[in-house]
Structure formats: structure tokens, C-alpha cells
């Protein structure tokens, strides 16, 4: 019984006839809607499709192409891992540069962080794809830069900025007295940072860092917009190869959603659990 509904005196809820709620809230149902439709499309459409030509059912299509689509997904994961590795290295440097005693260094690092954090990731991706040449010459050596390498670099820029912010925030969260204590024991600034401060905030940095990873993993599909062949590109190609039937869109994109969900949800849970554990300590 909802709280807002006035109860007439003398009527017990149990005596009222059972009736489904008269106002189904569309906003509430939409979530599962997608999944329901996805499932329904997979289950119910075969029956409908069998009436017509011998077109395979959506479920059959998804199963048939799953190996190819999963290869595409593996490629997304690979890009995300590389972008994360590059971005973490660069971001740690940038974050430490923000903490540098040299005012100019810290100001420049701060500015770079703000720019790369606040510009949409897709725009950064465009930026790298269009402005980085397709090959570079290092010591007279011509290195080709395929699109996926550029895309990886494009994704590592926002990772870098976010990691830099995480590093700075974590270092700032260590009380000043720790710096003072280390200083009075004649530790240099560098020793203090690496031996005293960073080891303390490593734990604190882990959950937000994992969060960034989850975001970048999900963002890799944007590579399809700039012409890198990955899962979404393959999904569109599969759709075309199956005759471009409109009813195939939902199951195929539903499959992509499912892949990412299966990959990202455990990371999300783990992040939340770690966060709670570190908080209580």
C-alpha cells in the first residue's frame, strides 16, 4: 500500500480485491524494458520470423556471429588495457608535476589536467585521429601509426588527466604533519614522496583508479565512430551481412550491452567493496 493513498475507515487492505496498479510508471519500467525486449526479441521473434522466409531467428544470428563479435570485444578490452597502462604512467607523472615545488611546472601540469579532464572524450579522440600523422619518423626510422594505435593514444589522454587528479587528491589527503615528520628526519622531498606519502595513499587511489578503468573500457566503443574496427563496427557489419533486418538491431546491440555488462559489473562491485573496506579503516 502506497503511503499517499488514504485508507478509508473500516476497510482492511486484505479485504480489497486484488488489482494490478492502475498507473504503470513508464519511467520505472524502461530499465528492464531494454532487457525484456532483448530477451523477448530473442525468444519471441523466431516464431514470427518462421512464418515468412527462411530467415534465421535473431537468437540464431547472435549465436552464429558471437565468435566474431567476441573477438571484437577482446580488441576493445585490449585497447582499454593499453590506454590504461599508458594513461596511468603519464598521469602519475602529471599528478606529481602538479605537486612540484616549481610554480611554473605545477601550473602547466594543472592546466593540462583541467583541459584533458574537461574536454569530451570523443573530442579528444577526434583530436588525436585527425591531428596525429599516420606515421612518424624517429631517428630516420619510419614508424607507421595505424588507426587503432592512435585511438589507444586518444583514450589514454583522458585516463592520464583523471589519474593525475587521483594522484594529486590522494597525496593532498595525507596530513601535512606526515611531511613535517619526514622532513625533520632529514628525508629529501623526493624520498618523502616515494617512501612515506605515496605508499600511504596507494590504497586510497585504487578504487577511483578502477573506476577510471571501467569508464575507459566502456568508452572504447567510441573508436568505431572514428573508423577503428572494433566490436560496434563488427556489430553493424554483421547486421548488414544478415540483410539489414530492423528486428536484428535490438538483439545485436543487446549482445554488445551484455558483453560490456558482464565485463564491467564485477569491476564495479569490486570497486564499491574496496571503497567500503578502506573507508572503515
Amino acid at each position, binding site marked *: 500500500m502506497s503511503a499517499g493513498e488514504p485508507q478509508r475507515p473500516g476497510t482492511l487492505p486484505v479485504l480489497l480485491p486484488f488489482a494490478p496498479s492502475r498507473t504503470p510508471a513508464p519511467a520505472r519500467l524502461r530499465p528492464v524494458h531494454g532487457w525484456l525486449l532483448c530477451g523477448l526479441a530473442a525468444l519471441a521473434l523466431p516464431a514470427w520470423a518462421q512464418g515468412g522466409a527462411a530467415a534465421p531467428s535473431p537468437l540464431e544470428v547472435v549465436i552464429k556471429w558471437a565468435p566474431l563479435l567476441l573477438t571484437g570485444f577482446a580488441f576493445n578490452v585490449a585497447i582499454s588495457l593499453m590506454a590504461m597502462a599508458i594513461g596511468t604512467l603519464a598521469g602519475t607523472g602529471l599528478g606529481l608535476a602538479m605537486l612540484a615545488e616549481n610554480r611554473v611546472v605545477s601550473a602547466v601540469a594543472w592546466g593540462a589536467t583541467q583541459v584533458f579532464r574537461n574536454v569530451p572524450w570523443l573530442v579528444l579522440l577526434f583530436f588525436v585521429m585527425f591531428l596525429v600523422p599516420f606515421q612518424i619518423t624517429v631517428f630516420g626510422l619510419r614508424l607507421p601509426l595505424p588507426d587503432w594505435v592512435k585511438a589507444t593514444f586518444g583514450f589514454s589522454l583522458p585516463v592520464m588527466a583523471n589519474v593525475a587528479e587521483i594522484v594529486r587528491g590522494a597525496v593532498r589527503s595525507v596530513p601535512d*604533519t*606526515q611531511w*613535517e*615528520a*619526514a*622532513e*625533520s*628526519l*632529514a*628525508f*629529501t622531498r623526493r*624520498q618523502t614522496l616515494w*617512501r*612515506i606519502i605515496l*605508499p*600511504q595513499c596507494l590504497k586510497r587511489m585504487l578504487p577511483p583508479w578502477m573506476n577510471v578503468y571501467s569508464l575507459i573500457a566502456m568508452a572504447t566503443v567510441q573508436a568505431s565512430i572514428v573508423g577503428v574496427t572494433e566490436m560496434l563496427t563488427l556489430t553493424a557489419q554483421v547486421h548488414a551481412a544478415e540483410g539489414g533486418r530492423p528486428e536484428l538491431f535490438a538483439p545485436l546491440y543487446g549482445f554488445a550491452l551484455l558483453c560490456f555488462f558482464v565485463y564491467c559489473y564485477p569491476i564495479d562491485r569490486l570497486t564499491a567493496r574496496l571503497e567500503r573496506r578502506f573507508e572503515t579503516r
Partner: protein
Amino acid sequence: MTRATPDGPPSPAWTPDRPIVRLRDVHKSFGTFEVLKGISFDVAKGEVVCIIGPSGSGKSTLIRCINALVPVSAGSIVVEGIEVTDPGLDKLALRRKVGMVFQQYNLFPHKTALQNVMMAPIHVLGQDRREVEARARALLAKVRLAGKENAYPGELSGGQQQRVAIARSLAMRPDVMLFDEVTAALDPETVKEVLVTIRELAEEGMTCMLVTHEMNFARDVADHIYFTDRGVIVEHGPPATFFASARDERTRRFLSQVL
């Protein structure tokens, strides 16, 4: 021990046999607010000096100036021949000679008690790990913490943490120890165990400078007491004369409140 007349700051010409710390006309301002307005005194080797005074009188700032945690605005400080106010000061060399213990202990929370004591000698002085470990264990035993080597700071009481902090400073084999209200954050029961440790240290001949509110302790262990208020030394002297016959009105009022 010969001393300057107790009713004024020591004259600049006066020097004890071997001054290990020498302050001359030290000024310190934060913005427009002048915390120290010309402090001068000497500390001889092996001497125990207590600095007392009301809150906000600049005691902690004064002690922080001595190991260059806080830069002074004017005047000069010399520690064992090192000119602290020299712009080209080698801060690390200074801090190897001067140990400091803080009110809030400031142990490194991610290291055990033993590791806290060992870190600086290994990383700063580059000493041999095994030798340092033996010394660290001995130091922990000396501050009566044998058996707590592998405890993390979070697992120790305030008094225990403070004694680890003292051992940590001693591991650097300093010539002077600075204590900044080291018992102010402790429970009354644990204050004593820390004071006992400091007293033992003083009796072994360590040069100590303490900022403290523990008047009875100051009376027991200090060779000389300085009373500061509003950035100047108002009155000083050996404990016997200082407590018995304070001349200045401010000192008397302060003593009547805390004793």
C-alpha cells in the same frame, strides 16, 4: 653553571662553555602578524631547556625555527656551527643533527613500529640494514616497547606511539632533541610513561629543548626555564629561582593559573 642575570635576556656577548644552539634576535612573522619579536638565548651541550608560556605565545614556532621547518624572518640561529638562517643552508645536514618529536606523534601509519625507527637511518644515512635493525630493536627496548616491534601505529596507544616517535628520532643519533608539546595529546595515564623516557634521555646527557605545559616535569628535569609571552622571553632562570621568585607580573599570573 654561570648564567646571565635572570631579569633580562642574555647579553649577546655572553657565551656558555660550549653553546650547541645559539639564537640571536630571532624574529618571525606570518603575514603582518609578528609571532617572535626578538628571541635570544644559548643552549649548552647536555643542557635541558624548557620553554613554557601561554598558548599562542610562539613557543612551537620558536622550536620549529631551530630545525628550519619554519624559516625565520630575521635574526640568526646557529646549531653546532651550522647557520640555520643562511639562505644556502643544507637543511638535510641540519636535520641529521636535530631530532624532533611532535605533539601528534606523526608516525608513518603504513609502517610497523620497527620500520618507523629504521626508515630514516637506512634511507637518509644509507646505513647497513642489519646494523640499523639491531640498533632500532635496542632503542625500542630502551623506550620500553620490546615486543611491540611489529605493531602498526594504529594498534598502539598514544603513549606507545609517542615513545616510538622518540625512538625514531634517536635512531638518527641527533645532537639535539626538540620536543613540541609531546604530552599534550596524551591521556593523563600515559603522560607519565613518555615523561619517564624523556627524563632518562636527559640524564644520559642528551641536549633537549622542550615546549611543555607540564610544570612539575619542567621543575624536575630542566636546567633552565624560559617563559615566553607574545613573542618575547619575559623571564628565565634555573627552576629553583624561576618557580620560587618569579618577578614579572605576567609570569606570576601564568604560574598561578597552571600550578
